C-alpha cells in the first residue's frame, strides 16, 4: 500500500466511525444510568435513516431541507425513545434485568413492523447531501466532501457530550446515577425524569447517527440488528459507560474495517488471504482480544454494584416423575390423533425446547447470560448438513456427530467467555455467534453462503413425518432430561453456588472457571443436537440459524417461560413457536403482534409465564385459606 492509499483508508474508516460512535455513545449512556441493555437502540438508528429519508422527500433536496431533515429526524427519534421509556421500561425498572431485556426485544419487533408498514420492504436509497456531493482531492485521490464532514462530526459530538456531562447539573446527576442511582433518589432527584431525559439524549444520538448515514447507506429493515451488534462491540471495547471509550473504539474498529476493504486480497507465502472478507469478522476479533486483555474494555471500570434489594433466586424444584411421564405419554400419543401439520409443528417445538432448555441451563442456574446461543444451534445444524453432504457420512452418523462438532466450538469459545461475567460475557457470546455467522455466510464453496445447504434429508426409514417426530422427541427429550438431571448433580449444585456467590464458591474449593467452561461445552453440544435434529427435519439450512435473530428467539423463549423455573423454557418454546406460526399465517405483521404480546406479558407477569401462573396460583390458594 502506498502512503496515499493508507491515508485514504484512514479517512474512510474515520468517516464510518462517526455514526458508529453516535449510536454507541447513546447506548452506553442509557446503560450507564438505567442498567438496561437496550436492544432497541439499533431500531432507533434505523428509524433515524427512514425518518431522514421521508423528511428530505418532504422538505426538498436542498441544503436547508437536508439538514433540517437530519435534525428533525434525530429529535423525532428522541421522542420515540421517550415513548419507549415512559410506556414500557418505566414500569419494569424493578423487574429482573433480563426481563427488561425481553421488553427491549419486543420493542425491536414492534418497530421493525412499524417501519415495514410505513416504508415498505424495499430498500430506500437516500439522496446525496446537497451542496456536499462533490469530492475533495487529497494526495491525488478523491474523497467525498460529505465524508470529511462526518469525520468532523464525531469529535464535535464527543466534545458536546463531554461538556454536557462535566459542566452541567444534568451531567453531574447522570454520572452520580451511573454509580448509585438509589442514593441520587434519596437526595431528592426524581429518577423517572432523569431516566426519561437520558433516554431522550441517547435516542437522539442514535437517530442522528442514522440520519447522517442516509447519503451513504440505503434505509432497510435489516439495519436494526446489524447496527446493534456493532454498537455492542464498540461499547464493550470502549468500556461500558465511557463515552470517550466509545469514540476510541469506534475509530479503531472503523479504521480496521476500512483497511480490510482497502487491502483486498493478498498473497502471503503462497496463501491467498482475502482481507475484504474479514470486514464482517474483524471487529469481533478486536473485541475478543480486548476483552481477554482488559475485561472492562479500554476505558471502562468494573461495574459498580447497584443496590437493589432483589429477592434471591429461589431454589430449583425437580420436576416430578409422574407429571413428566404423563407428558411423555401425551406427546407419544399426539401423532395418532393429530394431522401432519401438527406433527411438523411439534417437531419444531421439540427442537426449540431443547435449544431453550440448554440456553436456560447456562443463563439461569449457571448464571452466564448468552446473547449468542444460536452459534451452537446453527453450528450443530451445519455440522449435520456438512457431514452428510461433504463428508458423505450416513445421516444417522451425521446427526449424532454434529453435537460433538458444536461442542468442539464451545470448547474454544467458552475458554474466552468464562473469563468474563455479566454484560461483558453476554456481549462476547454475541461476538462469537457473529463470527460464526460471518464465516458461514461468506464461505460459499463450503457452506453454501447466503443460500445455505439443501437436500439434507433423513434416511429413508426416518423420512416419515411421524417417524421423524419420534426421533426428534427421543433425541431432544433425552437432551432435556440429561440437562435437568445434571442440574441436581454435585456439578449442577456447584454451578448454582458459583452464580449466587462466585467468591464463596471458589473459597470452598470449587474450580468455578473450569466448571463453567464444562457447562458451556455441555450446553453447546446439546444446542448443537437440537440444531442438527432441526436441520434434518427441514431438509435445508440457512445462515439465519446462527443469526442474532435466532439467539434472541431463544432468549425470548426462556424469558417468556421464566428463567427461575425449570419447565419455563419448554413452555416458552412451545408458546412462542406456536403463537408465532399462528400469527404469521394471518398477518404479514406477525412481528408487531408478537412484540405486543410479549410486552403485555412483561407488563403483566414480570416473573415469566410459568412464574406468573405460579404466583397467581399461590395467591388463589392464600385467598382460599
Amino acid at each position, binding site marked *: 500500500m502506498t502512503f496515499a492509499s493508507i491515508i485514504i483508508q484512514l479517512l474512510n474508516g474515520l468517516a464510518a466511525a462517526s455514526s458508529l460512535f453516535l449510536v454507541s455513545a447513546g447506548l452506553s449512556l442509557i446503560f450507564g444510568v438505567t442498567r438496561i441493555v437496550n436492544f432497541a437502540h439499533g431500531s432507533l438508528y434505523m428509524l433515524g435513516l427512514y425518518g431522514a429519508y421521508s423528511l428530505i422527500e418532504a422538505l426538498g433536496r436542498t441544503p436547508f431541507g437536508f439538514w433540517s431533515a437530519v435534525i428533525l429526524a434525530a429529535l423525532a427519534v428522541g421522542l420515540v425513545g421517550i415513548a419507549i421509556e415512559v410506556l414500557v421500561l418505566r414500569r419494569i425498572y424493578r423487574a429482573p434485568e433480563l426481563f427488561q431485556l425481553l421488553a427491549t426485544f419486543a420493542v425491536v419487533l414492534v418497530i421493525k413492523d412499524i417501519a415495514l408498514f410505513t416504508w415498505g420492504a424495499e430498500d430506500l436509497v437516500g439522496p446525496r447531501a446537497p451542496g456536499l456531493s462533490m469530492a475533495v482531492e487529497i494526495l491525488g485521490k478523491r474523497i467525498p466532501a460529505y465524508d470529511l464532514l462526518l469525520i468532523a462530526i464525531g469529535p464535535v459530538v464527543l466534545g458536546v457530550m463531554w461538556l454536557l456531562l462535566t459542566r452541567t447539573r444534568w451531567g453531574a446527576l447522570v454520572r452520580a446515577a451511573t*454509580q448509585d442511582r*438509589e442514593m441520587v433518589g*434519596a*437526595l*431528592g*432527584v*426524581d*429518577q423517572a425524569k432523569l431516566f426519561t431525559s437520558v433516554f431522550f439524549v441517547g435516542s437522539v444520538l442514535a437517530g442522528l447517527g442514522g440520519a447522517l448515514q442516509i447519503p451513504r447507506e440505503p434505509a432497510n429493515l435489516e439495519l436494526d440488528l446489524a447496527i446493534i451488534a456493532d454498537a455492542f462491540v464498540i461499547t464493550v471495547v470502549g468500556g461500558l459507560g465511557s463515552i470517550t471509550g466509545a469514540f476510541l473504539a469506534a475509530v479503531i474498529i472503523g479504521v480496521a474495517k476500512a483497511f480490510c476493504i482497502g487491502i483486498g486480497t493478498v498473497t502471503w507465502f503462497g496463501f491467498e488471504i482475502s482481507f475484504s472478507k474479514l470486514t464482517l469478522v474483524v471487529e469481533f476479533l478486536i473485541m475478543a482480544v480486548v476483552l481477554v486483555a482488559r475485561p472492562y474494555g479500554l476505558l471502562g471500570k468494573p461495574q459498580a454494584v447497584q443496590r437493589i*434489594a432483589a*429477592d434471591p433466586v429461589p431454589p430449583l424444584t425437580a420436576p416430578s416423575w409422574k407429571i413428566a411421564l404423563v407428558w411423555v405419554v401425551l406427546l407419544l400419543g399426539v401423532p395418532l390423533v393429530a394431522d401432519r401439520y401438527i406433527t411438523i409443528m411439534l417437531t419444531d417445538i421439540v427442537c426449540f425446547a431443547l435449544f431453550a432448555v440448554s440456553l436456560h441451563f447456562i443463563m439461569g442456574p449457571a448464571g452466564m447470560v448468552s446473547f449468542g446461543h444460536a452459534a451452537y444451534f446453527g453450528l450443530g445444524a451445519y455440522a449435520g448438513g456438512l457431514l452428510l453432504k461433504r463428508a458423505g457420512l450416513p445421516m444417522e452418523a451425521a446427526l449424532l456427530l454434529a453435537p460433538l462438532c458444536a461442542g468442539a466450538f464451545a470448547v474454544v469459545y467458552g475458554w474466552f467467555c468464562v473469563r468474563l461475567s455479566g454484560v461483558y460475557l453476554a456481549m462476547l457470546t454475541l461476538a462469537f455467534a457473529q463470527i460464526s455467522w460471518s464465516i458461514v455466510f461468506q464461505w460459499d464453496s463450503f457452506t453454501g453462503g447466503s443460500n445455505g445447504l439443501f437436500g439434507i434429508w433423513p434416511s429413508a426409514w426416518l423420512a416419515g413425518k411421524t417417524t421423524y417426530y419420534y426421533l426428534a422427541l427421543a433425541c431432544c427429550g433425552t437432551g432435556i432430561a440429561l440437562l435437568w438431571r445434571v442440574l441436581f448433580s454435585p456439578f449442577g449444585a456447584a454451578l448454582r453456588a458459583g452464580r449466587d456467590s462466585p467468591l464463596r464458591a471458589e473459597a470452598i474449593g470449587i474450580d468455578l472457571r473450569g466448571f463453567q467452561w464444562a457447562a458451556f461445552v455441555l450446553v453447546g453440544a446439546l444446542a448443537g443436537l437440537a440444531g442438527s435434529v432441526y436441520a434434518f427435519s427441514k431438509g435445508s439450512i440457512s445462515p439465519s440459524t446462527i443469526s442474532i435473530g435466532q439467539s434472541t428467539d431463544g432468549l425470548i423463549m426462556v424469558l417468556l417461560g421464566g428463567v427461575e423455573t425449570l419447565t419455563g423454557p419448554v413452555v416458552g418454546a412451545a408458546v412462542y413457536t406456536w403463537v408465532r406460526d399462528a400469527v404469521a399465517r394471518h398477518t404479514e405483521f406477525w412481528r408487531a403482534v408478537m412484540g405486543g404480546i410479549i410486552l403485555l406479558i412483561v407488563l403483566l407477569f414480570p416473573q415469566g409465564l410459568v412464574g406468573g401462573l405460579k404466583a397467581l396460583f399461590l395467591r388463589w390458594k392464600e385467598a382460599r385459606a
Partner: protein
Amino acid sequence: MLAVRNLHAFYGRAHILHGVSLEARAGEVVALLGRNGAGKSTALKAIMGLVPPAEGEVTFEGQRIERLQPYRIARLGLGYVPEERRIFTELTVMENLEVGRQVGRKAGRGAAPAWTEDKLFALFPNLAGMRDRPGGRMSGGEQQMLTIARTLMGNPRCVLLDEPSEGLAPIIVEQMAHSIRALKGEGLSVLLCEQNLHFSQAVADRAYIIEKGQIRFGGTMAELAADSSLREQYLSV
C-alpha cells in the same frame, strides 16, 4: 416533627422490623441504639422509603409518608445520610454537593436552615480546601463530612444519620459530634443510629434501644446513662 408507629419491614422474606415506634421532636437529637443486625439501619431506610415498609405509619410534619418514593420524602425536607457514606467517587466535592441541591423545591411548612456551599465549608473546614477533588480520593473522615454536607444541601428540616461515627479516627469523631451539635443549634432535628454509646451521649437528647427489630427502651439520655443493667442487656458486646 417525625413520628413512626408500628413499622414493619422485610428484606426479601426476612422480617427485620417488628413494629417499631419512635419519635423525634422539633430541634431534638435522638439516638437509636442497638447491636449489629438489630435493625437500626433498616429502620432509617424504611422511614426514607428505601425499604418500603410493609405495615405501619410514618408521619413527617403532619404528613403521612410511608407510601411515598424516597425522592418525594427527600423533597419534603427529610434528609438521609447513609452508612458507608456512598459518596459519588467520580464526582468532585462541589459536584457531590450539586447533586444534593434540590432545584425548584416548593418551600414546605416551617423554616429550614438554608445551606450554601460556603456555609457548609464553615461547618466542615476540611472540605473547603478540596473543592475539586474527586470523592474517591478522600479519606474516610472527609467522605463522612461530605456525605452529611451533601444531604444538607437539600435544606432538610430533619436528618436521618446512619452511624456517623463508624470507622472514624477518634479526633474526627470529636469533630463529628461538634458538627451535629452545630446542626442542632441551627434548629435541625436529627435521628441518628449508633453503636457508639459515648458518641451518642455527647450529642443526643433522647435515646431508643432497638433489638431484634423491636424497641426495648425509650427515654432521655440521662436515664439510659443511669441504668447500667439496660446497657448490659442490650448494648454491650
